[in-house]
């Protein structure tokens, strides 16, 4: 299958003079079309920087990032890259621009110069997808965090990207909001066939992914399907990260001498195994 994003020998440091502190250190990742990739890592692992690099908000110190074969270093293609690879940020409040929900969703396509009737269609469709149609005339500040974040997602969807990068989209939400947003992300991947790159530090969110990458100090330390990655409980723990609760419970049980598979991810699987 064709690559949506290819990252080749990527290096990045914020400070030009101080080349020693690399935020991203010789990274190679390729994301296939339609893939649901989760990037895990705790604070300072370089995962948010990576998101900004993919979107062309930062440019690589060395190496290349290709989004649908467009290089983020090429200033002429930067707007096409941002149109193809949309980005949703952590704080929903700080990414909504307009005072009315539908006007905000329209902001992206308006910037792209899409004609009015087409914008109307895209806005309605995007709001439909995130199940926020009935709030289209509301003021964003009266909505809950999860609702605001879904509006932000709709705002990106209205630009009709092939790929959406989520930079810790649930970090500031309550559990209800987190579930709403995760459900939306899954729908987008399964039904709309959008490529998803989800950056997070919540392990439970990684369970549904096609592939998980664990980052530490700008490097990949673990890579594989959620099952492969989370079965290495001790490695993950040594990186200061947690595994999903159920997996940890299974791991503890194995240590106590029970005979269960080490790659359990959901409650149902554990119940079956026991």
């Amino acid at each position, binding site marked *: 299958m064709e690559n949506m994003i290819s990252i080749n020998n990527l290096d990045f440091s914020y400070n030009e003079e101080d080349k020693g502190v690399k935020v991203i250190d010789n990274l190679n990742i390729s994301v296939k079309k339609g893939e649901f990739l989760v990037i895990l890592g705790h604070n300072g692992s370089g995962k948010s920087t990576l998101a900004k690099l993919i979107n062309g*908000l930062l440019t690589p110190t060395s190496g290349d990032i290709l989004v649908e074969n467009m290089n983020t270093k090429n200033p002429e293609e930067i707007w096409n890259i941002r149109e193809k690879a949309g980005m949703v940020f952590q704080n929903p409040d700080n990414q909504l621009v307009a005072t009315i929900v539908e006007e905000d969703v329209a902001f992206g396509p308006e910037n792209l110069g899409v004609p009015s009737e087409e914008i109307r269609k895209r806005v309605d469709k995007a709001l439909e997808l995130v199940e926020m149609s009935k709030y289209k005339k509301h003021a964003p500040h009266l909505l809950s965090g999860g609702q605001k974040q879904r509006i932000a997602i709709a705002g990106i969807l209205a630009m009709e990207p092939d790929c959406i990068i989520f930079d810790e989209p649930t970090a500031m939400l309550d559990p209800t909001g987190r579930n709403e947003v995760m459900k939306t992300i899954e729908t987008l991947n399964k039904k709309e066939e959008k490529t998803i790159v989800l950056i997070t530090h919540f392990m439970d969110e990684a369970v549904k992914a096609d592939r998980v990458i664990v980052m530490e100090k700008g490097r990949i330390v673990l890579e594989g399907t959620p099952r492969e990655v989370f079965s290495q409980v001790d490695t993950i723990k040594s990186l200061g990260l947690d595994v999903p609760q159920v997996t940890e419970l299974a791991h503890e049980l194995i240590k106590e001498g029970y005979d269960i598979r080490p790659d359990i991810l959901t409650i149902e699987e554990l119940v079956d195994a026991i």
Partner: protein
Amino acid sequence: MIKDITIGQYFPGNSFVHELDARIKILISFLFIITLFFIDSFVPYLFVLGFILLVVKVSDVPIKFIVKGLKPLMYIIVFTFFINVFLTPGTVLFQFGFLKVTEEGLYQAIFMALRLVFLVAGTSILTLTTSPISLTDGIEKLLSPFRKIGVPAHELAMMMTIALRFIPTLLEETDKIMKAQMARGADFESGNIINRGKALVPLLVPLFINAFRRAEELAIAMEARCYRGGDNRTRLNELKIDKKDIVTLVLVIGFFGIIIAMRYI
């Protein structure tokens, strides 16, 4: 509590006044202000009053909303009234100590107070019947011919939109910081003016820092959504001027013309 303050107090509806193009409404408000300053006697004021009442009737905005809009300006109106009463020279009607009330002063005071009342009432109809979005759009479109001489029309409109969007968010945040500081023993409600001013410092510092952080994040988010200034931008709801807008504008200009002409007859 602080969240309930509404700014840009839009009164949603679909009356004839609501449906008028924002640009036409802005132009009419502008002409209305100019006309007011041409008036020099009481008779034309009756016409102005009639005009305001008619527009309010057609717009379905309850009159109490207009009155509410006048309240914050009451002090200014009362202040100008007394300045005019006491400081206009002329035939003395009565005198308290050094304060003289003159016939001309009284006339001038009533005249000025009415002018201010009409000014605020007339222009508040604009904000009451136009949504903030169409208002900023209208301003952008009206200013765009002046872009050639360096008026940043789109940028001004964008700033207004963002300001309107963030006012409630920042008010909410002020409320939150205030409560957090009160929980640690800050006192915002007692002491003299200087002490109260000092008490505001721990409120303003975090508020400003947060506002700058928000601005930074918003800028990045806007850039990620392909925002690159006003060129080649389209709109979800394009403003459209049709026949009823033109007819209204012509009729209103005619009416204002008559009022101005009364000055010279």
